[in-house]
């Protein structure tokens, strides 16, 4: 019996199982907090440096595409300006109607600003590490966004000073969503190749490329109205009950530096 336990593989196995047990009881929380507070600064510097190098090389490579991009952005800017005028008018009307009906304006949510200090990318997970934790008010399950209400993911684990965020690109992530223009609901998911799709849309529902996909707020995991992306391709096969569509994500996940966590 003693020989069995002194075998390095059995011994290692027992140590890891012991650590899993201690962690499940929450007894490793303190040592994890110390580990993260010691490594956070190195991680932050290393991540930001790599991000800057990546951005620099990326812009050098795509230098010849900049002109086309400039023309496209100018056109998009014109379109958005006209939309902005319409939205301002709608907001003014909305405010007037609220006053008439004595309905109070919805409260804006409290957000926590966090810096990205690392990310995990493998075929089984796509997560971010952020430098805000439970001591800053971050809670497990909270939605994470970037500026402009663009959905990034959801907090899956918190430590004292840092947290882990599961991206919507994670192959195990599921988000209840709706196509804003048609009101059709579906489920947004991803695969290992970072292709975001909205699935379970009944055949016959009218969806078009370029339409906006936002969170529906169903199931209560994410607040309603967070921008996920735009439909880039519709995949509809007649013999299937549901149709699906590829989504171009609104967030540039490669260059994420700051995010907001819902309190």
């Amino acid at each position: 019996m003693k020989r069995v336990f002194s075998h390095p593989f059995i011994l290692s196995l027992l140590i890891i199982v012991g650590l899993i047990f201690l962690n499940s009881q929450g007894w490793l929380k303190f040592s994890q907090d110390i580990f993260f507070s010691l490594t956070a600064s190195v991680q932050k510097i290393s991540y930001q440096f790599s991000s800057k190098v990546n951005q620099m090389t990326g812009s050098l490579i795509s230098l010849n595409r900049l002109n086309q991009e400039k023309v496209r952005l100018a056109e998009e800017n014109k379109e958005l300006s006209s939309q902005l005028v319409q939205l301002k008018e709608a907001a003014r009307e909305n405010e007037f109607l609220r006053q008439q009906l004595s309905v109070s304006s919805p409260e804006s949510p409290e957000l926590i600003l966090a810096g990205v200090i690392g990310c995990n990318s493998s075929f089984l997970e796509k997560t971010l590490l952020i430098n805000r934790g439970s001591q800053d008010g971050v809670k497990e399950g909270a939605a994470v966004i970037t500026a402009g209400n663009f959905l990034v993911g959801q907090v899956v684990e918190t430590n004292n000073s840092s947290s882990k965020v599961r991206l919507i690109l994670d192959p195990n992530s599921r988000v209840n969503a709706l196509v804003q223009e048609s009101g059709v609901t579906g489920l947004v998911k991803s695969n290992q190749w970072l292709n975001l799709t909205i699935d379970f849309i009944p055949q016959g529902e009218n969806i078009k490329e370029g339409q906006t996909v936002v969170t529906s707020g169903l199931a209560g995991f994410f607040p309603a109205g967070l921008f996920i992306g735009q439909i880039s391709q519709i995949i509809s096969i007649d013999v299937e009950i549901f149709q699906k569509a590829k989504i171009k994500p609104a967030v540039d996940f490669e260059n994420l530096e700051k995010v907001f966590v819902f309190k």
Partner: protein
Amino acid sequence: MKTFLIILGLLLAAVSQTTVLPFLAISGIVPNLVLVLTLLLVIFRDFKKTWWLVILGGLFLDLFSGLSFGLIGLSLLTTAYFISRFNQSIFPEAKFWIVLFLIGLASLFYGLVLFGLAKLFVFINLSQQEIYLSLLSLNYLVGLLISAFYNMAFLICLYGIKKIFYPASFSK
């Protein structure tokens, strides 16, 4: 001193895994530096002498990962032991091509064990995170292959770096 440097190296590798390597991702798949380093330790120094370094490497990865705690540690340990046994029983000498083959094989094995354990963790309620992926899906298998080739390419780079800084070890 040498042991301390190895531990520091593993820690830095784990930090790089979450800070530098994601920017080298191909379709979201990055080379697993800690896996490659721990396997090199096991291949060149035997599992009996390095088992605790394997645990440490897995622990570092587990701490940074969003997966359930212990999942990566167990997968890494199983892979390292399997490769150590396989290497000892089949290959008498650790030549470059053999090491390259072992890293590729270990990457595939690691991916399969990680997937199996992830499902097991959900089944025995150790993890609340549902795994929607299917092992038999073409996506997953192709992902495994890409990650194996990527790890092998990374090993070639490591050998290249070693050749530049320690040319003496290659002249024999």
